C-alpha cells in the first residue's frame, strides 16, 4: 500500500472537477457552502475582498478556525499558506488539511522561491497567470493549478485573461516542431520535460481550475466554456446579498455550463452580486496576481 502518491494527489483534484470550491470564514458559512453543493471549502479568516480593504500582512489563518471549519463539514477542506512559507504548510499538513493553496492572496513570505511541494504528503494547488508559471509550479510539485485572476475584485476580466493565456500557451506548444521546444521552454521559464509533455498531450498534467473574480453563474459558465475544469469562488458568494441562493446557482451553472436555458433559469432573482472593482481603480502595487516567481 502506497500513501500520498502523485496519483492520489492529482486524483483528489480530479474528483473536484466540474465543481465549485468556496471561500468560507466561519463554520456556518462552510455548512451553507456544503448544503449548496460545494465540492470543497477554502477555510480562511478573511475573504480576499476584506484582505484588500483592510491591508496589512495577510498570513495563514489560525489553525483553531481551520479545524472548527473542518469539523463543521464532511467535504474536503483547503487552506492557504503564504508563497514560500513552508512552515505554514507543515502546520496545515499536521492538522490534516486536505489541500494547501500556496496563494498570492496572502502576503508572500519569500520574494524569490516557492515551496518545494514534492516534500509534502498533502497536495498543493497554486495560481498561475500563464503557461510558464503553471509549469514552474507543477515542476515544484503542485498537483492542481488555478488561473489567478485578480482576487477580491468580483471582476472576471483578469480571470479570463489568465485562463486564456494558459490555454493559448498550450495550443501554441502543440503546433511547434520538437526542435523548437527547448528554446520555447527557456522563453517560458518552464521545465523542458513538462513543455514536451504538454506539447504532446495538449493539456496540463494536472487539473486546471479558474479563480479570481467569479461573481455570477454566468461568470462561472464563461470560464468553464473557455476551458476551466472547475471554479474557485472567493468573495463572490458571501459578499453578495443572498449567499445561499447564489452559491447554489453557481454550482448549477458549473454543471450546465453549456445550457443557456438552465443558465437563464438559475441566474434569476439572486439579489445583488458583490459590489466589484474596476481593475484601473487598483494601484499597481496592490495587485495580487503579479505575486509569484
Amino acid at each position: 500500500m502506497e500513501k500520498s502518491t502523485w496519483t492520489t494527489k492529482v486524483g483528489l483534484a480530479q474528483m473536484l472537477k466540474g465543481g465549485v470550491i468556496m471561500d468560507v470564514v466561519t463554520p456556518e458559512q462552510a455548512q451553507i457552502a456544503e448544503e449548496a453543493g460545494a465540492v470543497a471549502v477554502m477555510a480562511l479568516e478573511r475573504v480576499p475582498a476584506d484582505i484588500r480593504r483592510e491591508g496589512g500582512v495577510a498570513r495563514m489563518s489560525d489553525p483553531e478556525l481551520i479545524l472548527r471549519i473542518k469539523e463543521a463539514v464532511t467535504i474536503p477542506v483547503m487552506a492557504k499558506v503564504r508563497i514560500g512559507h513552508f512552515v505554514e504548510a507543515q502546520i496545515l499538513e499536521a492538522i490534516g488539511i486536505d489541500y494547501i493553496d500556496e496563494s498570492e492572496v496572502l502576503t508572500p513570505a519569500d520574494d524569490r522561491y516557492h515551496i518545494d511541494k514534492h516534500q509534502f504528503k498533502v497536495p498543493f494547488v497554486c495560481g498561475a497567470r500563464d503557461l510558464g508559471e503553471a509549469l514552474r509550479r507543477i515542476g515544484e510539485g503542485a498537483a492542481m493549478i488555478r488561473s489567478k485572476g485578480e482576487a477580491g475584485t468580483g471582476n472576471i476580466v483578469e480571470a479570463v485573461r489568465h485562463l486564456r493565456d494558459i490555454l493559448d500557451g498550450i495550443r501554441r506548444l502543440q503546433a511547434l516542431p520538437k526542435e523548437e521546444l527547448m528554446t520555447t521552454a527557456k522563453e517560458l521559464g518552464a521545465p523542458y520535460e513538462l513543455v514536451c509533455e504538454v506539447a504532446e498531450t495538449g493539456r496540463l498534467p494536472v487539473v486546471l481550475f479558474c479563480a479570481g473574480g467569479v461573481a455570477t453563474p454566468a461568470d462561472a459558465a464563461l470560464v468553464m466554456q473557455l476551458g476551466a475544469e472547475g471554479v474557485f469562488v472567493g468573495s463572490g458568494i458571501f459578499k453578495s446579498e443572498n449567499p445561499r441562493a447564489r452559491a447554489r446557482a453557481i454550482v448549477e451553472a458549473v454543471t450546465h455550463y453549456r445550457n443557456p436555458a438552465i443558465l437563464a433559469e438559475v441566474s434569476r432573482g439572486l439579489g445583488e452580486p458583490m459590489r466589484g472593482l474596476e481593475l484601473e481603480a487598483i494601484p499597481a502595487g496592490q495587485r495580487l496576481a503579479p505575486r509569484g516567481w
Partner: protein
Amino acid sequence: MQPVIGVLALQGDFREHLAALARLGVEGREIRLPSELAGISGLIIPGGESTTIGRLIERFGLREPIVEFARSGRPIWGTCAGMIVLAREVDPETRARTQHLLGLLDIVVRRNAFGPQIESFETDLEIPAVGSEPVRAVFIRAPVVAEMGPAVEPLARLTDGTVAAVRQGNLIGTAFHPELTGDDRFHAWFCRLAREHSPAVQLEPATRGAR
C-alpha cells in the same frame, strides 16, 4: 450491437470514465438531464463529491429516472462518490447534514473512512470477477462498505477484510477508481454486463418511460 454507456456528468471525474470507454471502443454519453438517459444500456456514476452529485440528482429530476433505470435491470456502476450515492444509507458519523442518496444498493457506507487526504493510497486488489491479475486500486478520501444486505456480494476486499467493492445483481459499487489507472478491465467487464441489456431487450422499459 455495441451498447451506449451513460456517464452521469453532474460533477466529478466523468471525463476519465468516458476516456476509458473510448479506449475500449465503446460509445459513452454525458448525462446531465433525464431525457439523456434514453437509449442507454448502462450507467456509470463517477467519482466526485457525493453531497454535490446527490444534490444535483435531486435538483434536476434525475432520481426517479435513475431508480427506474435500475428497475429495468440495466447495470449501474458507482465509483467512490458514485457508490455512496447508490447506497441505502451513510453511517451517521460520516453523513453530511444533507445527504441525498438513491438508496438502490443495500449497503451502509462509511464516507472518507481512512481519514484526511494524506491517508489516500494505492494498492493491488484481487478482483476475480474482472480477471486473474490483480487490479491497481486508487483510494482517494475513499468510502468503505460498513454493512451489506443479504443480496449483496463482496467483489473485493482489502487485506484487513474491509469490503472495497460490491455487486447486487445489476448494481455495482467500488470504493476505488478504476478510471484513474489506465487499466480498463473493470470498464470492459461493466460493458459486457451492459451488452446483455442491448436496446432490443430494454425496449419495454424505454417505452414505459416515454409515456
